Each structure stands twice: as structure tokens, then as C-alpha cells.
């Protein structure tokens, strides 16, 4: 039995009895550490960000036969008793590798604040910037090989803020597009470029001799890192030219499909955290055709990713998460759209040692609010941290010397992991 079970129900009494924490550790953690045997921690994360607020009812939490159910029918999956929306037919066959959280109790129905909250675990406040989840992960998990530890595809990841420059995302515009900064400028051949670098090294050595101190030395390291990356064979992981057409067609030859393929290649090459951004979920009008189109694009790519990583064994070490800033109103509005809804929504999880086919929590019969086991956003983040072996309560210092936890007071959700 999971030692954390029952923690939630008796939380209040336990808080009273123990003063909530002992040496900064949540009671739950102490218990967890005492009885835990799971040793395969996730090493990588693929984080799908669906900007705009994705409808929970039309994806992971269908409400068949209810007035709020909408146009889509639920379909059965590879997990007996588990149903998801018909817009994910291929993924349905991979659900035994996946899990769902259907009871996220959000608090922000505004795009900016919701995005901030879901990506950082913190509430947005005026004069501090909290780092995104990717920055937290690479702050705690060392870079492997030449490639950057954190890559964001097709959109920005949040800033690293007080975690520092090394925890910033390396940004890739369109998947497969070459970063012009990784090659010598137009018209400069490799021979000439390398000659330039040789002369530059000579100059900088002379300067360092004249100017002692860390400044010059750390600049040299930055140049060395840059040149190492420029010359690294691992850079191939950023390219999609050599991907066979059949493979591309399986994932879908579109921005998202290519982004997922790229994420897979990067993780296979050692990148710790890949964020894949996608927008278009703010379906205030014509929700159903839009979600159908999203399904057509997302379903094959996600299903192939889960299937391929499971086949190679990397799925066990790779946590896949799909999140959005909030869900959408159960009620369909007069424009056949759904509006912002943060009271309850869902999250898709796969790999990373989760217990396949698991569903955490539920919403009420119409999808308005959590019915059981409400999960706070910070709890969700704490859960991801747990999968990665990161202590969500670890404190880091802000520029004001204010200690901040990696996750805003979250407790891992029991039961999600095997």
C-alpha cells in the first residue's frame, strides 16, 4: 500500500498534531521515504503546453449523455473501463501507458495568470518572477552531453528567473528549422570560420593574462561551450531532414507532428526537458470543429510518441505531461463555443514510472467541479517532481534573499505512480 494513502483525508488532524512540517519536510515525504522502494526515477520530461485553455470535456473527461457532453462520443481504450474522447482514436490504444488527472482544481480563469500558475506552480504576483517547470528540472538535473539541457519548441517557455542563465530554455522556432546562430554567418566558410576562432583564442589568451579574475575566465568557458555545441555531432538531433517519410507520416507532417518527433530525438540524445508549445485552444466560438481538428493533429503524434518510447524502453525514464492553463465551460455558449473554466480540468500524463491506465480524481457528472480527490496545481507539480526524484520543497534564494520553494507548497498526488 502506498504510504501516502489516507494522508489527504486525515491531513487536518495530522497538521494539528505535528505542526505540518518537520525540518521542512512534508510529513507525507517522510512517510514516503520510509516505505518507498521505487528506484527508477524519470530522467527526462516532454512537456506539452496547450495554450489557450483546452476543453477537458472534449478530451480527457467526456460526459456522455449529459447536457454538457458536447458533440463528441467517448471511446473505449486499451484500459478496461477507461474512456476518452473519440478525437483520440490512436491514443486510446496506448492508454495502458498513460494516466489522467481529472480533478485539477485551478483558480485562475485568465490566460496570463492561468498560464503562469500552471507553468510555475505559483500565483502571479507583481514583483517577483517564478521560474517555469523546465527551469526547475534543469536546475536539479545536470546537463547530459553537448546539447542544452532545456529546449523549448514552437514557442517560449517561462523564464528561469532566479534560477539563473544556465536554466533558461534553448529556443527552437519551427521544428527542424536550423538555428542560424549554430553556424558561421552567411558567406563564411568553415575553413575561414575556424581560422577566425583560432585567432580569437590567441587574442583572448593574451587578454586573460592581462586581466585576471573570474570575468575573463567565465567568458572563455562560454565561448568554448558555444564552439563545442557548434561542432557537436549531437546537433543532428535538431534536424528532421533524415527522418524517413513513413515516420513523418505516422506522426503527422505538420508543425505539431514534427515538434513531437523533434522532442523524441532530443530526449533520446540526452536533453532533460523539452517543452512543445501549441496554441489555438481558446475556443470561444465553434469549439467542436476546432477540437476535432486538434484531435486529428495531436492524436497520431502523441500515440506514436508513447508507442515508440515504450518500445525502446525510454518511456519508463521519460515523463510526458500535457497541460493547459485551464479547461473550458461545461455549458456550450450561443456561438457553439466554450469559455474559460478553471474550477476543474484535466491533465494527461504518460511514462516516467506512472502506473499505466490510472485515473486520479474525477469531476462531477457535468464537469463543473471536482467530485473527489481535488488536485491543486502545486500538488500536480510536486507530483511531477516526485517522478523525477526532485524535492519540491527545496529552497532557492531570490535576488532579495528570500527563500523560495521549487514548488509552491505542493504535495505529491498519491497513487499516480506504480
Amino acid at each position, binding site marked *: 500500500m502506498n504510504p501516502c494513502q489516507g494522508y489527504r483525508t486525515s491531513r487536518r488532524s495530522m497538521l494539528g498534531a505535528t505542526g505540518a512540517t518537520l525540518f521542512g519536510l512534508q510529513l507525507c515525504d517522510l512517510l514516503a521515504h520510509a516505505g518507498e522502494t521505487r528506484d527508477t526515477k524519470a530522467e527526462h520530461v516532454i512537456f506539452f*503546453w496547450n*495554450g*489557450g485553455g483546452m476543453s477537458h470535456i472534449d478530451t480527457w473527461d467526456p460526459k456522455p449523455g449529459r447536457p454538457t457532453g458536447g458533440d463528441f462520443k467517448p471511446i473505449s481504450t486499451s484500459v478496461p473501463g477507461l474512456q476518452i474522447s473519440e478525437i483520440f482514436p490512436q491514443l486510446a490504444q496506448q492508454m495502458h501507458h498513460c494516466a489522467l488527472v481529472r480533478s485539477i482544481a485551478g483558480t485562475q480563469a485568465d*490566460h496570463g495568470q492561468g*498560464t503562469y500558475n500552471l507553468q510555475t506552480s505559483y500565483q502571479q*504576483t*507583481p*514583483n517577483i*518572477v517564478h521560474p517555469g517547470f523546465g527551469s526547475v528540472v534543469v536546475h536539479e538535473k545536470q546537463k547530459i552531453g553537448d546539447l542544452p539541457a532545456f529546449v523549448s519548441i*514552437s*514557442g*517560449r*517557455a517561462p523564464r528561469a*528567473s532566479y534560477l*539563473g*542563465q*544556465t536554466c533558461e530554455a*534553448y*529556443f*527552437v*522556432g*519551427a521544428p527542424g*528549422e536550423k*538555428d*542560424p*546562430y*549554430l553556424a*558561421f*554567418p*552567411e558567406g563564411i566558410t568553415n575553413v*575561414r570560420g575556424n*581560422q*577566425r576562432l583560432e*585567432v580569437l583564442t590567441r*587574442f*583572448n589568451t593574451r*587578454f586573460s593574462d*592581462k*586581466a*585576471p*579574475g573570474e*570575468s*575573463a575566465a567565465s*567568458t572563455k568557458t*562560454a*565561448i568554448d561551450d*558555444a*564552439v563545442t*555545441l*557548434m561542432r557537436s555531432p549531437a546537433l543532428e538531433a535538431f534536424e528532421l531532414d533524415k527522418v524517413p517519410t513513413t515516420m513523418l507520416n505516422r506522426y503527422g507532417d*505538420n*508543425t*505539431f507532428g514534427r515538434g513531437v518527433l523533434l522532442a523524441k530525438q532530443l530526449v533520446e540524445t540526452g536533453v532533460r526537458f523539452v517543452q512543445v*508549445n501549441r*496554441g*489555438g485552444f*481558446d475556443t470561444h466560438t465553434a469549439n467542436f470543429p476546432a477540437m476535432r481538428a486538434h484531435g486529428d493533429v495531436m492524436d497520431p503524434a502523441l500515440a506514436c510518441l508513447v508507442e515508440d518510447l515504450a518500445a525502446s524502453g525510454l518511456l519508463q525514464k521519460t515523463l510526458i505531461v500535457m497541460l493547459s492553463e485551464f479547461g473550458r465551460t461545461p455549458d456550450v455558449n450561443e456561438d457553439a463555443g466554450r469559455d474559460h473554466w478553471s474550477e476543474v480540468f484535466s491533465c494527461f500524463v504518460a511514462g516516467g514510472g506512472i502506473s499505466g491506465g490510472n485515473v486520479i480524481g474525477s469531476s462531477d457528472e457535468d464537469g463543473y467541479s471536482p467530485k473527489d480527490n481535488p488536485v491543486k496545481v502545486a500538488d500536480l507539480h510536486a507530483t511531477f517532481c516526485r517522478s523525477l526524484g526532485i524535492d519540491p520543497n527545496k529552497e532557492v534564494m531570490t*535576488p*532579495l534573499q*528570500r527563500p523560495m520553494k521549487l514548488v509552491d507548497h505542493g504535495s505529491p498526488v498519491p497513487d499516480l505512480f506504480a
Partner: protein
Amino acid sequence: MQYNSISQVSPLFVRLRWVGSACLLSLILLNPATHRLFGSEKTSSLDSVQPKSIDDALDQENAVHGIVDPPEPAISDLAWIRRISLDLIGRIPSEEEIDEFLSWPAAERRERMIEKRMADERFTDRWTTFYADLLRLRSNSEGGSAAIAWVHRSLADNVPYDEICRQLISKNGKAGAVPEVGFILGDGADPMAMAGVTAQVFLGVRVACAQCHDHPFDVWKRKDFYELAAFYGKTRRVENRFTRTIYTTESTESLVMWPPEGVGKLEDRKPMTPRFPFEMLPEDHPSVVRLNARRTALAEEKAALLVKQESGPSPDESLDDLLADADEKVVRQTRKGTRDAALEAVRSEVRQIGASGGRSLNSDWRNELAEQITSPRNRYFSRCFVNRVWCELIGRGFVNPLDDFSNSNPPSHPQTLDYLADEFVASGYDLRTLVRSIVSSNVYQRGHSVSADEAKRANLEIAFLALPARRMNSEALYDSIVTAGHLFHVKHAAGQNMKTIWAEAQIPKQPSGGGVLASRSLTGNGGQTMNGAMAAGEDAPDQSPAYNLEGAIELDFAKILEQSQATGEETVMVDQMSAMSKEEIEAERMRMKAAENSYSYVERFTRQQLDDNPSFTSSFRMASPADPEHFLRVFGQPERVQLGETRDHTPSMRQSLMLLNGRLTHEAARVGELEAAYVLLTGPKPNPKKAVELAYLEILTRTPTAAETDEGVEMIKASQNRLDAMADLRWVLLNCNEFRFVP
């Protein structure tokens, strides 16, 4: 350009000053619990002779501390002109400027150059960036770009620092139209946030922790924080539901309640009375007396001037122009006789603002706060600012971190700090006087210690006997590369850079509230671009707008102010609405809402033949902060959101990639036909040696050593293409570490 502060001081300002002083005095008398820091004021300064200059003050203090090391000798004229140019106008000097400087008599050239730099328009640009960092002004926040443009104009007009701060702290009004409100709207006019911001930005005191608990290792109590926050308690950020106009105004109720939420009973919670918790100097302190004398003289001069002009218009600066014509609007609408419910809502909203605020919607409490903060008797205010400016120019503050004045973090040289602070106050809070006094000091002329002994080096730097090495700020680095590469103007003959490109055109859709005016020049900025800068969460994922990591889109600050202050827009909108049906108004509201959520530009891509003859504009005039992946951000331009965020000068791989492979360094290195180097290399009498010397002078502001000259000449002679070889040399010089460090 000469600035005369007298002409900028409005009569209202003069009037307010004296009223303010009276209020302030009464508050202090009623206020026994002000905090004392640095012990008592008398013991904080050493019992020594009143210093005659910065150097005198510093020498005295170093002597008291028993420091006997000799200072680093003054740097050479060439190193100095590079340093002063970077510090005052944010770029390295051009060859012509160096020649002119060296042509002046040695005894007076530095003084003359300081005056020349201070009068340069770029001084205003460069120090606007300093202010924007300090005040956390952001072009993309509500009223933010107008606020930056306003600071720019204030600096150009030499408006005193205290006056700038008073306006920023106390003004209410519409975002953009009243540019100063961009400051408090940057934090959503939230009282708790503003308490922390006010103390830290203007006074260098970190009280933000006291929002939730008594400060763990300082004197600040939670109650102090709430009392400070209470000054902002009645201020509200309001968004007009129909016009989407954002403004600040005063409410009758305060939001700041004591005891705080969760402490004590709900019914015990009462609105907090504002109180300023900082210790003040006595009224007869010499710096206060000097300033008051100066102000009296200025006021008399001004009064005399006014008498001469007879009765001018009486400007009432406290009026928000949204409301100035509010009554008029309501009258106009009523006359049209429309009884539409939606329109009535607009009216009642406008009327309500007018009724509650009368003709003056400025905050009494915040006026009071502004007076206290900027009072000459408030040493925190002057100390904090001079410490920042000192650090900006010298590389290290008397108090570090700059915003952490506290008992547990005393200044290294309290007497020197106070000397500077007092002189600053007595000068009427004049930035240029302060900067001039610092850069004219002996300290500023000193070199860096090259001692391999790290502890010794640190000690010399703490005593200001040697100056710490520092990197150029991102904007200065950018503009210096542009200067060194002659890219402010085209350097290639027409037709030399023909390219077929997919050009991006940005077509403005609808002027947005913030009013960022952008025109994208293709040449110089149309090269390497990366797609997909789209912020996550936006619609239309497959049509990412391209952006440019090294482009600089220059803003016209004057135009921003002009446009945002034009009051027509509001009137026109309400007029249009009165002619619309309820459905039309609703449709319009939805349209505006949609526009708000989308980009304000339409992106179009077209195939074009283009003479891509590069030229770049100054990065100091860009919308700031730039995009997160932009050159300026990569090199440390702050995001200006986080309180206490400073410029990050740590090197990174991204920076290296940008300089090694970026378009800016590449174009700066290429030799154009219109450059002197071109003639030196390909003319009838080629002179590679001179070309190498010129490259060193223009890029590193120094002459090469004999070995460096030989090395450069060898590179040119060994190459089949002399222009390529020169481009290689220039590329190396632009990329080398020496370039990035301020000498």
C-alpha cells in the same frame, strides 16, 4: 544643448512644494516611532573635517581605516575616452571623436569631453535606460511606453530627480495620456506591491518581506509595511468596460486593513492610517538649508518671470485628461437624447468618476508620500540614488546590493556617501551635476588592478583605489558594435548587397492602449530571423510571426507622448457609440476584446529584390525590455518585473553564439567601399599597417602593440583577399573579451 531647469518648473510645482513641506512637518511631529538607521545621524559621519571633494572624503575615510596602498594610476587618454563614452553616451568613441579629443590641450581635454558628452542627445537615451531599469518601466505594460518616453523627455529637460519621483508616485490618470501613471500601473497599482517597490526603488530598503511577517533580521515590522502600503490604499486601477481605457483613480475606501487578513477578528479590521516609517534629518541640516535657499531663489526668479508674463494660463497638472472633459462628454451625449442602456452605463461610469473625484483625482495620501520620500530631510532617498549612480560609473556601490541599506549592511564609506548625497540634494537633485562630479573625480580616472592576488585586488576595489572590471551594458555593447562597424549609416555602395528575400511587413491593425509605434526597416534587420517567437498560448500556432534577434526598432519618444496625450480618441469613441444601437455597441465591444487578444500587427510575407545595404539604429531607443531571445536580453537587459532584479552580466553560451555567428558582428566586420579601411587596403598605395592601426583604434580605442601590428599585417598579406582578411581581423577584435569590458 543646454538645459535650464528654471523654465521647466511649473508655478504649481513651486506652490505644491511649500504646502508639502508644511504637511510633512506636521506628520513628523506626530510621529515619534520613526526608525533610526546607522545609529544616530551625528555619529554616522566621522569626526573629521568637512570634505572638500569626493576624493577628499574618500581619502579621509581610507586613512581612518588604515589603508595605505597607493591607488592605481590614472588610465591613459585613450582608455579614458572609451570609458567616458560608454558611461555617458552608451557607446565607444568614433575615430573622429578620438582625433578631436586628442587635438585638445592635454590639461583640459578630459573636462571638455565630459561637457561634450553630457550635452549629447545620447546622454539622455543612455540614462533613460538607467531610469527605466531602476523604475522597472516596460514598454509593453499599461502606459509603460509613455512612461519611458516621459522619463526621456524629463531627462532631456533636466527635470530634477526628486520632481520625477514625485510625479511618478503621486499621479493618477489614464494610461498613456498621463505618462507618469505607467509607473504604478506596472504593478497593477496594488498597494502591497507598491509599498515594497517604493521602499526598495526610491529608498534602497527592502521591506517586502514585512508584508507577511516581521523582517527576520532587520527593524521592519509588519505594521510598518502596512502603514507604508496604506498610502496607496485608496488608489484603484480601473478598466473602462467599453473603451478598454485603463486608468488610476482614487476611491473613498482604503483597501489596506489592519490587522492583516487571518490575524485577529474580522470585525476588528480597520483601514490602516498611512505613516512614513523612515527617520528624517533635522530641518537645519546644512544640505537642507542649502537646498531651501536654492529653491527660494529659483521660486523668486520664477515669480519675477511670471509677473513679467502677466497672467498665463494656470495649468492644473493634477487633472486626468480622461476626466477633464468628462462633464462635457456627458452633456454632449445627453443632448443627443439617446437613451440607450449601454450608453447610459458609460455615462454613469464617467459621471461617477467625475463626482467622486471632483476636479482633482490625485491622491492626497500619495502626494503626502511623495513629499516624504523626496524630502531633502530624507537621506534614504538621496543616499540610495547617489549610491546607484556611483555604482553605475565606478562599478561598485558604497552599499551592495544597491537596494539593501540596513543596519546589518553598512556602507563602506559612509562619509563619502553622505558627501555625495548632500551635494546631490544641494544641487537640486540634478543628475548631470552628480554624474559630472563623479566622472571628474580622481577615483573615476583609476585603472583596474591586475594583481594576481585575489584578496589584494578585492581590497583595492573595496577602497576604490582600483576600479573593478565591468562589462558593457547590453545596449552599450550593441551600439558599440554598430559604431565600430560604421553601421549607423550605410557603408557599401548602392547595389553591392542585392538579395532576393522573403520580406516581412508589419501592418498595424489598431493602435493599442500602450501605443508602441513601430516601423521595421528592412535593411540591416532583414537578415537572419527565427520563426516562432509567438508566446505560448496564442492562437494560430502555425503562423508564427518572424522576429529578429538583432534588430533594433527605434521608437519616436516624442511621438509617443504626443499621440498618447491627444485627447481626441476618447471623445470620438463615445461620440461613435452614441450613434450606435445596443447590438452595435456590443459587437464593437467584442471586436475590441478580440483585438486585445490578438497581435496589433498583421504579418505579410512578400518576395522582394532588395539592396540589403545594412544600417542599424540605436538600441537605446528600442521598445524595452526587448523580446526574451533578443540580443539585448541575452546580454543582460533586465525584464524589469522582478523587484531587485539587476542586470545579469554573467556570460553565457547564447551570448557567445550571438557574437560569433550573429549578423551584427558579421556586418560590422565586413569592409564596405565607403570606409577608410577600403581605401587603405585596395587603393593605389595600400597601407596594411595603417589599416590595422585604424581597426584597433576604431574597435578597441587603442593603438596595437608592435607584435599585434605585425600579426595583423601578416594576416592581410597572407590572404588572397585583403578585404576578407581585414574582415577577419575586425571580427576577432569585436569578439575578443577586451572589447566587451569597459577599460
